[in-house]
């Protein structure tokens, strides 16, 4: 029973990791940018949610109506002002800039919010649960998982059915020719970053409600996001969810053996998959 419970909890946790991973995968897919600051963006979203909840007294999920657009705008401006100029033949420049950004965000948060760990209260949702047969499922993990599926469905719709999605794919395929379609690459990249940051905001809110966070928790979230992307297969949206689920299950099973093994078990499964299937579980066909 413990095992079944751990597996189900791991699957639901995978929803959160898929939310971490989706934004990372999206911007890598569109502009080949590896955003080292992605985890810190998530934590920034958590703090933003904290501020909105504390000053306006809103439920954190209502606060999403403010946090998501603000983070998306932050992403858009950041891409236009700081990241676009670094994109080019050299992959190192954007990597270093986002690494610097990661340090700046961590230290900025430290200055404003101190190193104390924080938590956002959501009026009891975080502890509520429903019984399904022999299992007790938390409402919050269920909401995380449902959100992850909704986000992936939404991304898939944008990518396959909208003008913006065509522009994302075209720019990713051949940025030079995309310009000849009267597409402004700088705007397309900024829209991708805005979308990524909007998803990050959702992830940040769930993180803030689910667990304690402090300014230094970003990098570990980045690693989990990375692992989910690589396990799932680069460039595959549903693969991202699968990767998150594999990572989540590995962690909860690890924790069942010994709480100290939780994170380690996730890393080991990640390495195992890198060895057995270096391109991930669902690699893109045309890669």
């Amino acid at each position, binding site marked *: 029973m413990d095992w079944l419970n751990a597996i189900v909890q791991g699957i639901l946790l995978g929803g959160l990791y898929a939310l971490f991973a989706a934004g990372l995968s999206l911007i890598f897919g569109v502009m080949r940018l590896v955003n080292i600051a992605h985890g810190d963006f998530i934590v920034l979203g958590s703090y933003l949610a904290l501020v909105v909840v504390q000053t306006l007294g809103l439920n954190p999920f209502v606060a999403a109506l403010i946090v998501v657009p603000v983070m998306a705008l932050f992403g858009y401006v950041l891409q236009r002002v700081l990241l676009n100029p670094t994109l080019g033949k050299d992959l190192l420049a954007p990597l270093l800039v986002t690494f610097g950004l990661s340090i700046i965000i961590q230290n900025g948060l430290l200055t404003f919010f101190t190193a104390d760990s924080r938590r956002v209260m959501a009026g009891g949702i975080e502890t509520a649960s429903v019984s399904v047969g022999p299992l007790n499922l938390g409402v919050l993990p269920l909401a995380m998982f449902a959100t992850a599926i909704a986000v992936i469905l939404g991304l898939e719709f944008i990518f396959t059915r909208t*003008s913006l999605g*065509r*522009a994302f*794919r*075209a720019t*990713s*395929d*051949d940025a*030079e*020719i*995309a*310009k*000849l*379609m*009267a*597409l*402004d690459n700088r705007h397309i990249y900024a829209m991708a970053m805005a979308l990524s940051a909007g998803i990050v905001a959702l992830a940040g809110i769930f993180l803030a409600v689910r667990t304690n966070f402090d300014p230094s928790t970003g990098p570990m979230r980045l690693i989990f996001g990375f692992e989910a992307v690589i396990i799932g297969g680069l460039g595959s949206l549903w693969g991202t969810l699968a990767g998150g689920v594999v990572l989540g299950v590995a962690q909860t099973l690890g924790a069942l053996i010994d709480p100290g093994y939780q994170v380690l078990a996730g890393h080991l499964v990640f390495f195992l998959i890198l060895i057995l299937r270096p391109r991930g579980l669902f690699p893109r066909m*045309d890669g």
Partner: protein
Amino acid sequence: MSAPLLRIDALSSGYADFQALFGVSFDLHAGEALALIGANGAGKSTLLKTIVGLLPCAPQMVVHRGDSIGGLSADRIVRRGIALVPEGRRLFRSLSVEENLIIGGERGRAGEWSLEPLYKLFPILREKRNAPATSLSGGQQQMVAIGRALMANPEIILFDEISLGLAPAIIKDIYAALPSITSTGVSAILVEQDVTRALGFAQSFVCLQEGRVSLAGKPAEHSRAEIVAAYFGSH
């Protein structure tokens, strides 16, 4: 003579550490088809890329309808009605045939070219419209590339080596479609290895040699020998 639609004026351009064009000048008039000929490496593709803004140059080197547009970003030049069919087709591989056409038109100008007229011009594309663009044969891909440029309803269309690597029968088909494009009043600059075919299609020509204009005029005004000399040089 009326003011030219497009004036190339003492244009010099090239890549970071390599200059490919040296003071190239010529005019393109409304409704005209101009053949740009020259040996490999003469600078033909570089010139087309510079005109559409993929390579930088000084503003006054490219004048469109009286405005200096040299060095504007490519997306702004395309919006003015100048489209390029790039060498090697370069279709978007993760887009279907129809999506490649749609994306060509979405931000372009209004006009008579849209999916329906294109499918009439190239019926095979209607049949293949949901196929991935790069799964088509070379000739069909070239039709998509031409269609993608037309969808923006350009007033000037630049063709870069549209027959390169295609079977002769396919080349004939593609050239058979060109008059129905230029007959709508679209002006064209045609870069082509096959000089006879290019001169047969165009009303005027410019021959480049090592980045400079070596001969220009109307095909009928120059003997074959003159053109060959301008093409290969006298060494």
